[in-house]
Structures are given as C-alpha cells and as structure tokens.
C-alpha cells in the first residue's frame, strides 16, 4: 500500500501502458474480450486518480507526490513528476474521460485491438504532460500524444468525405484532417522545441522549479541580443505552440477538420483533454517562466482570445454539420480559458487575476465534460442516421425523447445555463477579467450571446420543428451503454453547477501559487 502511495503518479502514468500491453497479447479475433478488458483496465488509472484526489492535501502549496528518478542525466533532465491543484484536476478529467470514451468506442469494428492500444498510449501521453515537472519530459509527452491521435483520426475517422488538395487530387477527408492536425501541431511545437533547447542551454537544467527561478532571474544579454528580446521571442515560441493546441484564433483551422473526421471517442478526448494541454501549458509554463512578457503581451493574447470567442461562436452558428458546429463551439469556449489566463498574466498576483484563473481552470474542466458529452451525443445520432447534416433532421424529440432530454441538458451545460457547470466557470472568468480588460469582456459578451444562438439552433434543427418523415421507425432510442457513458458527465456538470466548492478549493490554492 505504501508503495502505491509513494509511486502514485508513476502508477497513474504507466498503468495505461500496462493496459496496452495486456491488450496486445489478447487474440485479435476476440473483439468483445478486447473491448471489455480495455474498459475494465481503464478504470485502474481512474481509481488511482480518485485515490490521488483523496490523498491530495489542498491546503498545502507547491507540488505534491513528487517523484524524481534519473532519466537523461547528461543534459540534466530527470524523470520528475508531481501534481498541484491544476494538474490534479486535469488528471482527474483525463482518467475519467478515458473509460467513458472506451465505452463509447464499443461500436468500433475495425481493428479493435490496435484501436485500444493507441487509446491507452494517448492517455499516457496526456497524463504525462499534466504530471511532468521536467521541461524535457513535458515536451516528450507533449509530442508523443500526437502520434496515437494522428492514427485514431487517420484510420478510424469518418469514412465518408473527400477533400481536394492542390493539383486537384482528391484524398479522403480523414487523411487530410489528420495530416493537417499533425503538421500544424508539429510546426507549432517546433518553436517550443527550440525554445526549450535554448532554455536548457542557458539555464543548465530542465527541472521546472529550478528553471522558474534561474530563467526568470537571468539578466545578462544572450547571443548578442538583449535578454528582453530573447525572452520575448521565447515567450512567443511557447505561446504559439500552446495557442495552436488550445486553439486560439487564428491558429484554430486544424480543429474543425480534426474534430469532424475523428471517431466519436477521438473527438471526445480531443475536445475533452487534448485542447486542455494548450491551456495547461500556458498555466504551467508561460505564466511562471515569463511573468514580464506575459504582462507585456497579455493584451495581444487577450485580443486573440476574444476573437476566438466571437468568431468561434459565429462560425459555429453558420454550420450545417452538427459535428462541425460542436467543434467550433470548442474554439468559442476555450477562448474564455485563454482570456482568463491573459488577464491573469496582465495583472499577476491581484485578486482579480486569481478569480480569473480559477474560472479558467474550472472552465477547462467543465468544457472537458460538456464538449466530450456533446461529441458523444453527435456520435450517437450519427450512428443511427448516418448523417450529420442538421437540415436532414427535425422533430426528432417525439421519436427519441430520452436522447432529446440528454441533448438539451448537455447543451445547456455547454451554453452556461446557471445551475450547471459552465455557468460557474464562465462567470468566474468574466468576473475576474472585467476589471482588467473591460472592453474585451464586453466584446466577449457578444460571443456569449451567439453561443446561445448556435446551441439553440442545433437543438431546434434536431429535435424540434416539423418531423422529417424519413426517420420514422428508422431511428432508435439511446441505449443503456450510451446512457452509461453520458450519465457520469451529466452528474458532474450538475454537481459543479450546484456546488463547485469541492473542486474550486483544490484549484484556488494552486493558481494563487502560480505567481
């Protein structure tokens, strides 16, 4: 037992790999066995994170459950993991969404084994990012997570659709989307990679706590350039990499493609966790490493965030494809996260900043729940109707009342209806940012208005209006397995909406320590 407690983080991080190994040795033909084994195994990390949550002492500052082992001694990088409130929340989100996504993937028929292995590797990659306290290790997991996601989209994405590329050649849309996802993200990480290398060279360590001190206190000139210039360039290298992942306007164009083409569970994880990696990067690295630059450029970042909120909402409203609509809504919602972070960077240390950050982190968690839920629900109806075009639906409520109820509930959470999770976090963000960036906040309200518009549009197109006759008798009610996927999400949305203190307590302590 002591062993488990002492190595809790390592266990959480690598049990998915063990699970992948177990799945690997199962016979390929036994698809059901593979599904169930994967599903059950995915609860181990979840259970461990619950244990972590319970053991976590929210009143203590700094990192807990730290572990350190030799990894790459020659360049002073080590296996160093630890959690604080922010990463703990994200770990919980990840380990929660993984079993649900696996359950949602039970309809996958093609190469179940490879699919499950990739899924576990993806989980490990994401957890690694949240747990790393070593910059190099952070990057290792950051990049590594791309690979399984790429294959999930590329191989198990939607089979329909073609995209024309240059030269008039047509390729399957999922190939296009996965390629775009991979290259965008890799190109984005390139600056990050270079900046990390530069930091490592200059500071002689990759250990984050040490780095936070050494790098920020650096004041001699570097490479013949004034230190402020070097730091500004490095700041943007980090910021762009993370902004791409979030994604912030105008770096978001990979996202609708990737989300639309990914398999349902892939979209759930993509929206639920992967986007949070970017925001987490801002919190964990950008704010502590570049307090001065963050203050300096917060305005620009905040502007991009507001653009993301407004354009995300407008674009979302303009979609006819249900999944694309939800995808753009992610741009919109993640905009609030970045807005909160930008404001906090501008007014570091103030009470408003802390409120904004609380909101941002909670919004990350909430969006993880609601976006995963929304994508899942889109997937549910797509599997039945084999179309995602909103114009083809209509008046389905009488046919599938339970599904309709669930959809409305989840949409409302996404919309930010008071009483549900989304409201609490968006309120906190807006409350925190208003005194700092008043104009931006006001503009963001316009975005919020359109959020309401597109969510209601979706509900109207699918559930209300005249019944499209072709669905009569062809569309079935949501089944038990699917309900089991969505139910925990709904419970959490409601729980946070009604009583957010249990989670804010953990987050609050951590974000006030970020400065």
């Amino acid at each position, binding site marked *: 037992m002591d062993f488990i407690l002492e190595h809790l983080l390592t266990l959480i991080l690598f049990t998915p790999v063990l699970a992948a190994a177990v799945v690997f040795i199962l016979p390929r033909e036994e698809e059901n066995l593979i599904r169930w084994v994967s599903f059950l195994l995915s609860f181990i990390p979840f259970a461990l994170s619950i244990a972590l949550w319970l053991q976590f002492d929210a009143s203590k500052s700094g990192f807990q459950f730290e572990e350190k082992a030799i990894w790459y001694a020659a360049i002073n990088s080590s296996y160093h993991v630890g959690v604080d409130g922010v990463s703990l929340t994200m770990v919980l989100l990840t380990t929660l969404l993984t079993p649900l996504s696996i359950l949602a993937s039970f309809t996958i028929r093609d190469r179940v084994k490879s699919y499950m292995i990739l899924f576990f590797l993806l989980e490990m990659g994401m957890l690694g990012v949240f747990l790393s306290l070593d910059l190099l290790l952070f990057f290792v*997991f950051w990049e590594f997570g791309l690979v399984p996601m790429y294959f999930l989209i590329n191989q198990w994405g939607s089979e329909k659709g073609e995209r024309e590329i240059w030269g008039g050649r047509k390729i399957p849309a999922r190939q296009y989307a996965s390629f775009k996802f*991979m*290259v965008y993200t*890799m190109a984005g990480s*390139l600056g990050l990679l270079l900046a990390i*290398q530069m930091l490592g060279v200059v500071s002689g360590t990759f250990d984050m706590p040490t780095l936070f001190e050494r790098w920020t206190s650096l004041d001699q000139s570097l490479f013949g350039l004034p230190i402020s210039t070097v730091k500004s360039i490095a700041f943007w290298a980090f910021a762009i990499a993370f902004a791409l992942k979030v994604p912030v306007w105008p770096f978001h164009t990979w996202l609708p493609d990737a989300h639309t083409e990914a398999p349902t569970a892939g979209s759930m994880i993509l929206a639920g966790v992967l986007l949070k990696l970017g925001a987490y990067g801002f919190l964990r690295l950008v704010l502590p490493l570049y307090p001065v630059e963050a203050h300096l450029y917060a305005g620009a970042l905040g502007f991009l965030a507001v653009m993301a909120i407004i354009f995300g909402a407008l674009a979302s409203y303009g979609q006819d494809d249900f999944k694309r609509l939800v995808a753009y809504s992610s741009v919109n919602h993640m905009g609030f996260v970045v807005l909160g972070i930008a404001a906090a960077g501008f007014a570091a240390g103030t009470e408003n900043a802390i409120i904004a950050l609380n909101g941002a982190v909670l919004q990350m968690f909430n969006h993880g729940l609601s976006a995963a839920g929304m994508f899942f629900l889109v997937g549910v109806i797509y599997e039945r109707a084999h179309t995602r075009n909103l114009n083809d639906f209509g008046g389905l409520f009488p046919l599938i009342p339970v599904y309709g109820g669930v959809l409305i509930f989840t949409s409302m959470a996404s919309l930010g209806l008071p009483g549900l999770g989304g409201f609490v976090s968006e309120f906190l963000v807006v409350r925190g940012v208003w005194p700092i960036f008043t104009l931006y906040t006001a503009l963001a309200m316009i975005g919020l208005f359109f959020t309401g518009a597109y969510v209601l549009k979706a509900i109207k197109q699918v559930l209300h209006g005249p019944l499209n006759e072709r669905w009569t008798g062809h569309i079935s009610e949501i089944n038990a397995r699917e309900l089991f996927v969505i139910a925990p999400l709904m419970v959490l949305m409601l729980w946070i909406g009604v009583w957010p203190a249990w989670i804010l307590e953990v987050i609050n302590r951590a974000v006030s320590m970020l400065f």
Partner: protein
Amino acid sequence: MQFPILSLIVFTPLVAGLLILLIPAERKNEVRVAAIAAGAIALILSTWVYFSYDIAAGGYQFVEKYTWLPALGISYHVGLDGMNAPLVLLTGVVMFTGVLISWGIDDRPREFFAFLFILATGVFGVFVALDLFMLFFFYEIAVFPMYLLISIWGWQVTREYAAMKLTLYLFVGSVIALVGALAMYFTSGLNTFDMLALEQAGFSAAFQRFWFPFVFFGFAVLGGIFPFHNWSPDGHVAAPTAVSMFHAGVLMKLGAFAALRVGIMLLPEGAKVHLPWIILLTLVNVVYGAFIASVQNDFKYVIGFSSVSHMGLVAMGFATLNREGLLGAGVQMFSHGVMTALFFAVVGMVYDQAHTREIPRLGGFRKVMPIVAVAFIIGGLVSMGMPGFSGFIAEFPIFMGVWRAYPWVAIVAAISIVITASYIIRIVGKVFFGEMPEEFAHHVHDVSVLDKVALVVLSAILIVVGVYPQIMVPLVETGVNNVLRLLGGV
C-alpha cells in the same frame, strides 16, 4: 593477459566468411544457416562487450596491442571507449539483422555472405582501431566489398553506375585522408602510428590548419557531407537490402567516426579553425537533404536522402565542438544506424513483394504485412525526432550544442524536422494505408518469420534507447569527455 574480446569481434566475421566460402555452392541453406549463426555470434559478442564496459573507469578498455611493423611504428592496437562502443554494438545489430533478412538471396549466397562478412570485419576494425595505419587498413577493407555487393546483387537499373560512383568517391576521400595521416606521422617525429601517442604530438597550429580539411573531408565523404553526399542516395538505392542496411546503417558512421577520431581528435586546433564554416555545410545537409527527400517518388531515394539529412546532424554535432553536440552526435550515430537499417529492411520487404518502389503506385500494405507497417512507423517516428524514441534522445542534445555555439543554425536546422515529419507521414499514408492497388492484391503476402525477428529487434532497440537513455548516454559521455580533453577544455 586478458581475453582478446575485441580481436574476437573483429575477426569473427572474417573467419565466418572464409568458412562459408568452403561450403559447396549448391548447399545454399547451409550457407544461410552458417551466416545467421555467425551474425548471432557477432551480435552476442558485441552486446557483451558493450555492457561490460566499465563506465566509472572510463578511458580505453579491452586494449590489445601487438607490434605489426616495428620499423615504422605500426601496431595492431585496439581499444573500446565510450565513442566507439555503441558503434560496435550497432555493427553487431545490423550484421545480425542484415543476415536475417537476406535469407531470400538466391544468386550465389555463398559469395554474398562472404563479402558481407569481410565488410563487417573492416567496419569492426575501424571502430576499435587505436592505430592510424590500422584504421586505414580496415577502412579500405570496409569499402571495397561494397562495390561487389552492390554491383552483383543490386538493383539492375543503376547498380553498375552507383557501385562505381560510390567506390570511387569513398576511395578518393580515403586516400586523400591517407596523405594527411602520413603527413601527421612524419611531422610528429614520434615514429609511431599510435593515435594515443599522436594525440600528444603537439602539431603546430599552421600544420593543423593546413591538413585538417584534407583529413576531415576525406573521411566525411563517407559520412555523406555536403557537397560530397552525391554518391550516397544512388548507392543506397542500388544496393540490395542487407547492403543498404549496412551501408547507411554502419558505413556512413564509419566516415563520421573516422572524421572525429582522426580529424578532430588529432588535429583539434585545425578543427577549431575550420569547423565554424563547415557547420554551414552540415546545415545544408540537414535542410536540403530533408527537402530533397520530401520530393522523391522512389521509396528508397526518400530514405537515402533522409540519411543525408540525418548524417548532417551528426556532422553538425561534431562541428559544435561542445559537450552536448558531441554527445548527441555520438548517440545519433547509433540511433540513425538502427533506424535506417530498419527503414531499408522495410523498403526491401515492400519491394520484394511489389517489385516497384514508386510511392504513388503502392498502397495498402498494412493489410498484408502489419508488422512491417508498424516497424516503418516506429522508424518514421524516430526519424522525425519524436520523443520517446532514440532519435529524440540524440537530436535534442545536438540542437542544444548548436544553440550554445551558433544559435541561428539551430533555428534554421529545425525546419528539417517539419519537412521530415511531412514526408514520413505521406509515405506511411500512401504505402501502408489507403487502398491496395489491384495489381498487388493477389500476389502480395506477409513477410517471413526471420524478417519479423529482424524488424522487432531493430524497433525494440529504438524504443529502449528512447525511453531509457541512461542505457547509452553515460557511456557516450565518457567518450565525449575524452574528446573534450583533447580539445582543451572539459
């Protein structure tokens, strides 16, 4: 006297090759089994010696020294240090896997394996040599079987041209370096070819400045340095699979290693003067190589040019002359060797089935050969420097070293990562996924068990080093410290 393990490693392939020549030509299966056995022995010995190296003690270990030609101070002098130990292991690995995947060679397998093993002896000899003469001796031994291997068993369209081009390029390089080596020998006045003694010779700065380019480029030709890289893609493409593996996997390291061992370590002052501009050439290697690779349509040319790009990183690491750069270059030599051997093995397997290497004509090979597809993907991830694989472990410190020395070079070189990623993804998508063209649908089948074993061995090494760099890095570090000592700073 201790057990002469290094000599055993050097001469095992040679003896095996000669024994194989004694087997009657018709008994091809016996030839193959004997070859695999020899490969396994070489692998076991080199693995054993790799792990027996005492990192705490450092320096040259397992040293053997016998006089060879006392009149000129030539000796047979071998030793293992942190720089060459991974390369010895690499050679063992490539030799074993190369033999495994060559089971299908049906035209004079006896001669094929004999030549391949002579080549292996040359390679082992260069890596462990501590005597300048001996280094050249084995260097040439490693070069000339290549000609026969490529021209006899190679791809019929270009083999004659490519084999000749390759041999002449390498020979030119090596003999020019040889003149430099002779100049060092006579100028030192020590009457010895022993490199450990020549390291202390204290050549004048002017002498070093003059001779360094001859020696460095003479060897670096084999390392594929721009603008002398031209032979390499042609050679890779024309060579039969196992030879491509050897060639890109091990022989190119031979050039890089010798450029370090003789050029930089014996002429450190010259290195300091010239490497600052040579790094620009390596930059061309890295970026241009990747770019050219991305526009190729022939599967094997893609890999060939990617080798140019990656070997450029090795040279770039050397050119930094600092700890991180050299360390990364040392690991990169190993990592790239294994990776490219894997690549060429995969290309060979695809070609054997499809009889074409034109990427646009291929497709859907995952369905028939899943393990090959996975192996290629792993190699591809290594190639694009994906964390978690050995390529990252190697390239990261190289870039750090470049940052320390020439920050702008690092920024430009990084472009290659994205280019590499894009062409690797393109190939994976086109060749292994997608629809299999009708023409292949019926006659393509999965690879043999031996092929799979080879792929698994290579892939596993790439992952192990990537996940647990401590298995190699501290060792290389001791070697790097030795180089730094000669460069005048620790």
